[in-house]
């Protein structure tokens, strides 16, 4: 390069990137966008927060009636209402975060094309907003657990790990999809269908030990990272007598599969987003 000596004082302008060189700035920006978005949802309609909580609760009510009263499929599962509600809240977080993230970069086109800022803040903020919502919904779950007689126990210490796993997965998928969506608009309908498949392929409506075909159970546990999470949540948080993820998968070593999958999705998402970030503004 023919660098001239007289511009050494200046800072090179290298264009947009995913995170930028200023990590605190990235976090502050992500947090600010997320909180404002949450505020908008919260105060956006008359009943605000009520709707945020009602959605999973209504789904819960319908499924609960169908599975315990109409079909009696889950009648002998201990703590079924709590398991069902927890599953719905966890899945709602995942679907909310990833489903909103897909179009998020395009939704904020006006700022992407006109302001220089770390691009990753957009999908990351979507996940944080979903997380704030998730926190509120968890309070309802806690009330439910108390009412159903779930007692605090040592398994609760696993909570941060489980939530961390869920966040890593959601953020990884969000980065991947939002970056791809800029180029391939088919991602949105595809992901909508995928979410449906993941919903039925996860032990939300049912508990996994009721799945009697071994290979289907194994497939679910090894391919769908949400499945072992839900199994472990049931074991560690709600009912220690229920089988753990390791037990269902046939040994703790098998846990490496979903953990590896989540780590892989996160790494791929970060890689793809970082690669696309410099060009996002022009590809929109």
């Amino acid at each position: 390069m023919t660098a001239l000596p007289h511009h050494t004082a200046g800072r090179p302008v290298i264009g947009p990137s995913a995170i930028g060189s200023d990590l605190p700035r990235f976090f502050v920006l992500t947090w600010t966008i997320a909180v404002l978005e949450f505020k908008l949802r919260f105060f956006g309609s008359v009943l605000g927060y009520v709707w945020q909580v009602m959605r999973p609760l209504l789904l819960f009510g319908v499924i609960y009636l169908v599975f315990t009263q109409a079909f009696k499929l889950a009648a002998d599962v201990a703590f079924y209402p709590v398991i069902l509600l927890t599953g719905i809240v966890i899945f709602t977080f995942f679907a909310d975060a990833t489903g909103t993230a897909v179009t998020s970069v395009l939704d904020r086109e006006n700022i992407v094309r006109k302001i220089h800022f770390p691009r990753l803040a957009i999908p990351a903020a979507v996940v944080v907003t979903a997380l704030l919502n998730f926190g509120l919904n968890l309070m309802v779950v806690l009330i439910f657990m108390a009412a159903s007689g779930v007692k605090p126990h040592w398994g609760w210490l696993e909570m941060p790990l489980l939530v961390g796993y869920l966040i890593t997965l959601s953020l990884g998928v969000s980065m991947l999809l939002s970056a791809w969506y800029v180029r391939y608009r088919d991602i949105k309908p595809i992901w909508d269908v995928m979410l449906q498949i993941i919903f039925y392929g996860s032990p939300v409506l049912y508990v996994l030990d009721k799945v009697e075909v071994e290979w289907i159970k194994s497939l679910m546990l090894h391919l769908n990272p949400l499945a072992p999470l839900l199994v472990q949540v049931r074991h560690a948080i709600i009912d220690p007598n229920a089988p753990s993820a390791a037990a269902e998968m046939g040994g703790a070593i098998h846990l490496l599969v979903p953990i590896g999958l989540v780590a892989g999705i996160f790494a791929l998402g970060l890689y793809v987003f970082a690669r696309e970030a410099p060009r996002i503004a022009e590809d929109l």
Partner: protein
Amino acid sequence: MDATTPSDPVVLVEGAHKSFSRPHIAAHTLKERVLHPLRFRGHETLDALSDVSFAVQRGEFFGILGRNGSGKSTLLKVLGGIYRLDRGTIHIDGRLSTFIELGVGFNPDLAARDNVVLNGIMLGLSPREAKRRYDAVIEFAELEDYQDLKLKNYSSGMHVRLAFSVAIQVDADVLLIDEVLAVGDAAFQQKCYDVFNEMRDAGRTILFVTHDMGAVNRFCHRALLLENGRPVAVGEPQAIANRYLELNFKRDKGQVDATASDAEQRPGDHDARILEAWVEDEQGAPVETLSQGEPYTFRVRVEFLQAVSDPAFTMIFYNDQWNEVFVATTAFAGERQGHFEQGERAVFSVSLDCWFAPGRYLPAAIVAHPGSGTDVIDRWDRVLNFLVVGTRATGGLVDLPHVANVTREIAARAT
């Protein structure tokens, strides 16, 4: 640092190159695809910037002038870090602030406070700095009483005040400003320009992107002219503005000529036909670009197809806004032009000192039967297409030579 030292540029752009690959649409034919199978592999490449280099000194008001599609907005965006360069380097010394649009990212459902703080954080301020800036913004916008009102409930005037205040309350060494910042009514535009002037006088370095050469003349110390992504010239605003006019002139000429030559559409009874028209300078050489204040002669050649007595010749000088700026005619001269036989030719000449305002002119030539001049034989609109360049863009249609002075009246005070 010394603003006059050329070795101290605040902004240095070297060999900047940026191309976009645009998804290629059905407009490209199958033939093209077959002929250039590699070139049209789903995308076509558009060179928005090619080999752009320039340096801006500290404290300069630097204009970037170009037509739509000339690459000036792309240049602004690579300077602002919104696009990444393909090749070349950009160095900026100091804090940079980019304003491409008023009120970018404002959310109508959020209060002014939230919007302004978010905007500050997006620009890279810490939360504390953003809150401090918020106070300054709201004070400048004079919106202290409406801080918690949602933006959607603001009047459009309040909205613009807030957005503009956000744009200028920045603690940046280098500002990138797009011309669209100065939108709105005349009063608001004036306010924008006042602020630009203040910033310039305060010694801030400003890069101003525009297609308005008047603005370049008014504000800029120097300017860069872009055409098709390439730098055409860098230098004094006036010289750049003249080059810019010439470029516009060349582009428009082709399409104007195509419509003007259609003789079938021309009004009149066609007892005579206007053959051609041209402009000569003092030496009699044909010219297309006229310098303001210089003498020129406009000539129109006419062929008579029938015998005509005492025809009246007229030239109407229209500018590109279709204002009749000036009319030259023999109809009121009281002079009889005599009898013209069938097949005879004549040249009608108008000589004048060119005191038209700088800009483009499209004169019409008319031959009419004697009388009021309404009994038209042949009328050729846009028979010519010429450009006036000059240093005196006052906003008037013409810039007549004149004397303007002020005489101080002797006051009643003694001594």
